[in-house]
């Protein structure tokens, strides 16, 4: 779960939530504003921390559960901090058959995180995805907007190094 990043004091909480307050001011506080408010808040904070979600629920007169339901329904929203680099490992049929699973395992091992997790230094977020439309290059991963194809586990460390700088 995304832990509150705002510390304990009321003052630092207020400071932490100030940008959100500014975002909310641009809306009427109606339930239909939920998705755009969540998008803007995520742009601001990088993800949707619990404190932020609570504040949004209060402002739009929704319950925490209602907002959480929406956040977990759409894959665009994230409850955890995201890494600087997003690694998407394809596990679609073609990639799967050609060893996508081994590639994923190698990355997990190299970064010390599981599927869906982010490294502690916030450098990488690892995600497995279904076919990304580059089956000819299977197995494929994408790091941010770069496609890396025809992979074998031994090629992984060098690729990751390029993004570590």
């Amino acid at each position: 779960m995304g832990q509150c990043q705002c510390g304990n004091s009321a003052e630092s909480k207020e400071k932490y939530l100030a940008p959100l307050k500014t975002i909310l001011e641009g809306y009427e506080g109606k339930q239909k504003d939920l998705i755009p408010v969540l998008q803007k808040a995520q742009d601001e904070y990088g993800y949707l921390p619990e404190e932020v979600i609570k504040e949004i629920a209060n402002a739009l007169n929704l319950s925490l559960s209602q907002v959480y339901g929406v956040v977990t329904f759409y894959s665009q929203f994230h409850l955890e901090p995201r890494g600087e680099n997003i690694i998407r490992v394809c596990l679609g049929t073609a990639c799967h058959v050609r060893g996508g699973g081994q590639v994923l395992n190698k990355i997990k091992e190299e970064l010390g995180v599981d599927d869906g997790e982010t490294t502690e230094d916030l450098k990488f977020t690892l995600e497995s995805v279904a076919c990304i439309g580059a089956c000819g290059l299977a197995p494929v991963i994408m790091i941010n907007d770069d496609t890396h194809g025809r992979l074998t586990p031994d090629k992984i460390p060098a690729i990751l190094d390029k993004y570590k700088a």
Partner: protein
Amino acid sequence: MDTITLTIDGQQVEVQQGATLLEAARELGIEIPTLCYHPDLSLHGSCRVCVVEDVKSGRLLASCVAPVNNGMEISTNSSKARVARKTNVELLLANHPNDCLGCDRNGSCELQDITHDLGITRVDFEGEKRDLPVDASGPSLKREPNKCILCGRCVRVCEEVQGVSALEFTERGFNSIVSTGFDLPQSEVNCANCGQCATVCPTAAITEISEVDKVWAALEDDTKHVVVQTAPSIQSSLGEEFGMEPGTVVTGQMAAALRRLGFDKVFTTDFAADLTIMEEGNEFIQRFKGEKNLPHITSCCPGWVKFCEHNYPDLISHLSSAKSPMSMFSAISKSYYAEESEIDAKDIYTVAIMPCTAKKFEKDREELVGDTDAVLTTRELARMIKEMGIKFETLADEKYDEMLGAHTGAGTIFGTTGGVTEAALRTVKEELDGEPLGRLGLGFEGIQEASLEVAGQTVNVAIANGLANASKLLDEVRAGNSKYHFIEVMACPNGCVGGGGQPLPTSKEIKQKRALGLRSIDESDSIRKSHENPMIKKLYDDYLGEPLGGHSHHLLHTKYQKRDRN
């Protein structure tokens, strides 16, 4: 409005435009099984257990949502429809734990009934079972998401009837479940503990936290003097658990059964309801005369109180400070009763039988902890009676024990919407102008109002049941344009007769029958006013002194706390 004519299973039927196929079929007395459909909630149309065949097109339609069309020919029992219904139920069972033997709802589960009715004897699909944690951390309700069939009835009742939305669909696809924000325990979100979700859940995915074992242990403990109080509304609902018609008054048999279970004294919350009226009635008179904290709002419903603390913390000063009848009873059982019967208060164990899951939460509130030792729902009491092998239907009537068993019709009607208001006004009016209260003529609507002349002044009262209805009245109070002096709120539809701990299944009709049962007790009671209850008079004379006096204040009044909206 236009009418539509169609044929269902070869019979013609004429219904209003906009009706559903399910409604049309029921008009003809044709039963179609349903699961996600609930008559008191909006339509969902997700389980497809209700499919019927449109004969002309051969299409299968979900009858609970499909509208009628002129000239339609519908077959509810073509082999195509029957096979589809069966398959849809089998698919639900494929992901279901299917451990009916050990399940709380064994015997009252709609999924089990449908499985039986459709003649499903084994499940051929091997589905992936979910392994989600059980949430049993709160005082009131237990959630077992593995038993959830995603019908959404709890989500809808919590949103549409209660305006709380503590439960929601979360995640997507196969991972989709009904949960709370951040999957927090239900007791850590804005839930009111009313248990309406449990009453509409077709399976055991939401049930009360059982305290039956605690009560058995107390009953078997020779050092404990175990007293029991039963809430007003139990008298006309408990019989349903033993096959009787809803609304059947079983007060005498209930008292007999409680004695057989081994309770040392069998008392009634009706007594304490009279006491609540004495305190709260006088509190209202003070506020009315002093024009302070009006409208006065009732506080005997713990579901409503928690909802108010979350959503209207600014209006807490309007709540009556009087404890609920349950908590007043318990406080008296450990003070006056203990002294009168020369029993050490610490040896007294007070059990409350309530129609209510929120009362389990009330018992644990920091302001009230220690008053009541255990709260059982109507359903839990029935379970104990069955476990003891007591043949409830054959018991001869017995009476409550003396002292805290003395009751009036006023106390009894606390169990139905409007009852507290009527009981309070019977006493308040006589106190203020010496005249008896005329008929208020209350029904069962979600919001009702009445005006009456008292000592030359007009008193406007409003009564809400269901928390979404309460919000409408409270929003007016907050905006400063409420014309009412007295507002009664009960969290559950129809009041406690519709409580979250009452027998299942339940429906509007069943709740109304229970309410009529309570009114019939009131009408035949020789004493119908709280202030005329002889034991109440004696309690004030011998022990408490005056209503709102120092002694009462200490024992019978409480405080509330602000809670976060979310």
